[in-house]
């Protein structure tokens, strides 16, 4: 089976690129929790390994597992592995996740799926939530573009039920809730419900004061074509609350603890415009920012993401 990597070079998707750098910045905050380099990273590296590259270089994470479901081109993936410390596990995530050791290994798991939220994704979420050591992060990215329909948009509700199972669709979701960013919002809710329910079972025999809790940190909406959702957060032991607070995630503007999303918007700017704006940043006064002829809206968007902004140029290598 082929993946979307054959159609898109992940490194070139600007919103995804910004998101990756934002996640990296958030991961760095974990050092108050425990040494970031002692975490393990589990993800879907594809042949580009953009996330693995970034997290190894920036955070010195060395225990890395890339789950790769394309079992027909193993040679290609092994060849493209950028660092020796990356282990590639060939197979579906449903199959590989239970094979990995979990125990007390603090893990940053970012599963960046090609498709929409479905039963199989929920199974992965359940497994990670049930097994991650306290202090671990679970992050899920899914396609949240409104479903195609044959005749009426109301068919979208049936599609959602088919994808995730009737019993996972909250009873007050109406067919009209699934247009625009609606599917992203409902998908976030279903992920949250899956985590909540799994933790309730996991906590059933844990003494009070030692329950495992989940705090959402990420709720990104972005679009490099199709609408995408990235939702996730930290699993921690009640006793670790002071540590969590000292991470001060809240001071990062893109951290979101509830249903309100952080929308990553990427303005199209030239290199000259970027340099012109960078020279004026950071500033508390966005009104004063100026680049000749660039719409105010784009300047504001840029100011929000400038530290994570990718620049693509043609390189003769």
């Amino acid at each position, binding site marked *: 089976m082929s993946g979307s990597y054959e159609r898109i070079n992940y490194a070139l998707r600007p919103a995804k690129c910004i998101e990756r750098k934002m996640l990296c910045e958030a991961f760095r905050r974990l050092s108050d929790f425990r040494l970031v380099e002692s975490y393990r990273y589990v993800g879907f590296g594809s042949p580009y390994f953009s996330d693995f590259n970034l997290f190894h270089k920036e955070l010195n994470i060395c225990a890395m597992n890339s789950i790769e479901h394309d079992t027909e081109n193993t040679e290609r993936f092994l060849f493209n592995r950028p660092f020796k410390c990356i282990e590639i596990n060939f197979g579906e995530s449903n199959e590989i996740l239970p094979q990995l050791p979990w125990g007390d290994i603090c893990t940053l798991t970012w599963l960046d799926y090609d498709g929409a939220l479905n039963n199989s994704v929920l199974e992965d979420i359940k497994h990670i939530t049930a097994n991650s050591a306290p202090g671990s992060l679970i992050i899920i990215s899914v396609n949240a573009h409104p479903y195609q329909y044959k005749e009426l948009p109301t068919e979208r509700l049936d599609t959602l039920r088919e994808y995730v199972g009737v*019993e996972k669709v*909250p009873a007050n979701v109406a067919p009209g809730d699934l247009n625009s960013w609606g599917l992203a919002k409902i998908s976030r*809710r279903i992920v949250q*419900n899956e985590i*909540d329910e799994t933790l*309730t079972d996991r906590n059933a025999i844990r003494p009070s004061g030692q329950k495992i809790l989940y705090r959402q940190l990420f709720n990104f909406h972005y679009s490099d074509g199709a609408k995408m959702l990235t939702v996730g957060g930290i699993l921690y032991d009640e006793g670790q609350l002071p540590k969590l607070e000292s991470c001060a995630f809240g001071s990062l503007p893109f951290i979101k603890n509830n249903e309100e999303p952080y929308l990553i918007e990427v303005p199209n700017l030239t290199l000259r415009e970027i340099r012109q704006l960078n020279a004026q940043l950071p500033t508390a006064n966005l009104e004063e920012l100026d680049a000749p002829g660039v719409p105010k809206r784009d300047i504001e968007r840029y100011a929000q993401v400038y530290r994570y902004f990718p620049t693509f140029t043609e390189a003769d290598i």
Partner: protein
Amino acid sequence: MVEPVSRTRIDASPTKEFFIFMLTKDISLIRAIADLVDNSVDGARRLRLNRQYDGLSIRIEIDKAHFIIADNCGGISVDLARKYAFRFGRAEGMPDMPYSIGQFGVGMKRSLFKLGNVFSIESQTENSRFVVTQNVLEWAKDKSNWDFHFSDIDDNWQLPAGQESGTKITVTELHQTVSDEFRLENFQTRLISEIEAAHQSSLDKGLAITLNGIPLKHRPAELLLSSNLKPAHKELSISVEDNQVKVKIFAGLSKSEPSKAGWHIFCNGRLILEADKTQTTGWGDGNPQFHNRYARFRGYAYFDSDVAKFLPWNTTKSDVDYSSSVFRSVRLEMITLMRPILEFLKKVESEKENKDEKEDPTPLELFINDAKPEIIERFEYNQPQIFIAPARLKGKDKPQMGRISYAKPLKEIEKIKKILNVDTYKEVGEKTFEYYFDLECEE
């Protein structure tokens, strides 16, 4: 010397712990709540003998600290509360409520114990009102006294104009596991879905039920119907001790969905068995075991009686009472009615296995696709009907066919194509087969 009476006496009296901690193990949390809904539905049934419930409502609210169920379905009279409603087990002398759902005298208490430690019941009827508030653990301390007490009572009053008669039950100090579940949206979704299923016939007749403000929807049972596809139907009236149990059975086809396939059994409108595929409803007994080829099968059996105890349900209303003679005899009818439907589905499957192109629907599938879903209550049957479906088409007179497929070098195939003057590989295969058959096999 010990007195003779106490020497021979063996203590077999019940304990409160049995009711509080053991009986509650037999019922799931969702079923326990459904049981309380049953009480409200019974109120609606008493209030509206014509079974039209417009204007009547049941409001359920759950959160991590509370459970509330409130209705405007007539309320419990002081007299009924004092003598019967709180007894453990149905007391003799209790008047029969026609077509009621609650009848064992365990439902309400078991549900309250299941939920939490403190309950309060407020009820007002046309001419009486009361409040009972009880802390269960306090009550359990006194081993010998089983009474509850009214904390407020007025058995000589008039329902003020503009107020509605009804009952409100509040449970607080929820058990930890209950509180944990109530916080989960997934639990609420499951609860809604189960109550929708359990009370579909009451919802269908206008009863409004809400959970945390979300209105429950009714999902009427439907079967596929067309001019040459007719579901099976039979009505029976069975006499039990001078009372009648009326039974209606429908069976036929619907969308191919394994999770919904099987028999659905209702007692006085309450679903007690959903999509059953076990021996209980005749699978693997006079009929084949369930298999996904039967995923289109749906059966519905409705048992109704004035006297609830003659209906074939268990106390948690989650299964049939298999030993019920009424059920045993109806089960035989069910087995008979489902037989031709399963045979038909077997044919559909075998047609599919033998067809040429895997994608196209087979002739029998086309017939099924032509049929439209119809709500079973709208079927106009005056007499028993066995399942009618189109017989297998044409194939009957046609000899049994088999398929041959093989690969040969392209060069050779092209050569034959030229000589035979045909365009397709299929024709090459057929012509060469016929050639061999004519030369070597013809007698």
